[in-house]
């Protein structure tokens, strides 16, 4: 955990009693709240509440994957999303990562990636909300695709 955070982030810790105005500035209303910014100061992810170590690392890896996605680095984003699925398969982040791995692959130029992802959801995380979102990809619905 410590190594992962040290290698991938500039870490900051803000305590409510020491810096209440910083909580207000960033609209934080509960603890713990974790906020991830990219190098250009854009907020890329935020999540509230305690998480066990594996789930926390999965969420942080997911944040880095979403950052790559937001910057249009499709191949890097897909790799990072798939790493979340493979390394943290039992976390809540995994189903979300599987969904976005498919989207990244599609954005990278593979038109069959969405249908393939929908098929994957029949085997993995079939009861997740992300499986429902991917279910539309089993039929042609190009109007819904960005």
């Amino acid at each position, binding site marked *: 955990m410590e190594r992962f955070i040290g290698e991938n982030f500039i870490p900051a810790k803000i305590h409510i009693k020491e810096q209440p105005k910083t909580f207000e500035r960033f609209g934080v209303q509960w603890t713990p709240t974790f906020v991830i*910014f990219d190098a250009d100061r854009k907020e890329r992810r935020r999540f509230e509440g305690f998480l066990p170590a594996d789930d926390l690392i999965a969420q942080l890896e997911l944040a880095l994957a979403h950052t790559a996605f937001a910057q249009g680095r499709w191949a890097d984003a897909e790799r990072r999303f798939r790493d979340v699925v493979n390394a943290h398969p039992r976390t809540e982040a995994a189903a979300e990562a599987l969904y976005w791995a498919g989207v990244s692959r599609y954005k990278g130029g593979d038109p069959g990636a969405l249908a393939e992802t929908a098929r994957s959801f029949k085997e993995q995380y079939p009861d997740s909300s992300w499986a429902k979102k991917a279910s539309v990809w089993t039929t042609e619905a190009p109007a819904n695709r960005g």
Partner: protein
Amino acid sequence: MAISWIKDVDQALAEAKARGKAVLVDFNAAPM
């Protein structure tokens, strides 16, 4: 490997910009 937490968000953001890294901010109320 202990984490070197920074207590200034703006300092963390500036350091992240210089080093091309992301920033993780942990807003907490843990006992001091």
